């Protein structure tokens, strides 16, 4: 049996979860990764995506829009910019997020266009994955 690791997920407004898990799939900015106990200490930034925590008797999924994750041998803490349990996602939330991202992209400095473009694309991707409309 795999060793367990303490997993905490917090957003600026509340603490979403704090459980013992076996592994967490994290949507890192440079690609997805699965963190387990004994991971090398790492700090990574997140892209919009689905975060999945699997453990003894738990399987939790959260939608995050960005933020940071700090991994160490026995803890995984995720500081999300905005995080919602998968079940709380609604078309309304998706539309809101997409509108904001589109506006940010339009207002962005040309140097930052590739970043906002990528953010928007990731957001559309996750929304489509969850079966929401992405046409505004």
């Amino acid at each position, binding site marked *: 049996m795999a060793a367990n690791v303490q997993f905490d997920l917090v957003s600026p407004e509340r603490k979403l979860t704090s459980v013992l898990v076996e592994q967490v799939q994290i949507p890192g900015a440079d690609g997805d990764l699965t963190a387990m106990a004994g991971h090398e200490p790492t700090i990574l930034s997140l892209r919009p995506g689905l975060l999945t925590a699997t453990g003894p008797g738990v399987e939790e999924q959260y939608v995050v829009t960005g933020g*940071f994750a700090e991994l160490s041998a026995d803890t995984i803490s995720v500081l999300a910019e905005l995080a919602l349990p998968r079940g709380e996602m609604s078309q309304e939330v998706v539309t809101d997020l997409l509108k904001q991202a589109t506006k940010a992209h339009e207002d962005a400095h040309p140097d930052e266009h590739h970043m906002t473009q990528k953010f928007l694309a990731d957001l559309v991707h996750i929304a489509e994955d969850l079966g929401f409309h992405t046409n505004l």
Partner: protein
Amino acid sequence: MPSLRDYRDRIASVKSTRKITSAMKMVAASKLRRAQEQAEAAQPYAIAMGEMMARVAKNVVVNGSSSKLLAGTGSDQRHLLIVMTSDRGLCAGFNANLVKQARRVAYDLIGQKKDVYIVCIGRKGKDVLQRDMGTHIWESFTGMVGKKRVEYAEVSKVSDYVLERFESGDFDVCTLIYNEFKSVLVQSPVVSQLIPFKMDDAVQDNADPVDAAPVGPTSPYDFEPTEEEILNELLPRNIGVQVFRAMLDSAAGEQAARMTAMDNATRNAGDMINDLTLIYNRARQAAITKELIEIISGAEAV
């Protein structure tokens, strides 16, 4: 001498004032509970962020290419003060104490021949500071505390504005002055530096023992994508979080201060009603006695 009717009116008016203050007290109490809950809910994120910042900043070698948010601009000539007050009054010394503290800091800096700029959060602070420091005020924000709760999106407008001005090189040092919520009875003004990033001693002491181990030329952390990119994202985010946390503290403190002030006002109104009732009764009794004397002496005269 006031007539009986004057006393009656007076008592009625104090009674209705008491009704209002006691209602305000109850409203403040329920808002306080909500604000406290929110402040508690936000605590884990702020702590985790502080610890992460401390760990990252500790291992970063500050050099010419480091982010200015961490290394500073190399000067401390231009200071920006963010003064955080409430939008509404009737909360005892809550705003007055804070503004006093802000003014002390500002005049101190001016005395040292520094340039001082001010960003106000909350209507009350702006109203007062406008009088003698109007020319120093860049911008003021109101309506941070929404109907029910403090919204992160709303508060981040302030941090975004500050960061924008910093990026365009308008100031060197940024200090936040806000009321810390110590307890329901005590809120005290706190001055904390936001830019450049200053490691909090408390956070440093609490940080993992891992960090205490001698650090070689490389940091014990792997960074993805790169250390620099993480830091460039982490630093501005940290400022947003600091401002948000201060705002939550200030919002809870405001309600607590108002609750205490209104509780005192209600009690004072009660005392006043008792005193007035006593005087009223005495005056009434005096009037009755006077009438009796008039009747008796009238009867005796016949």
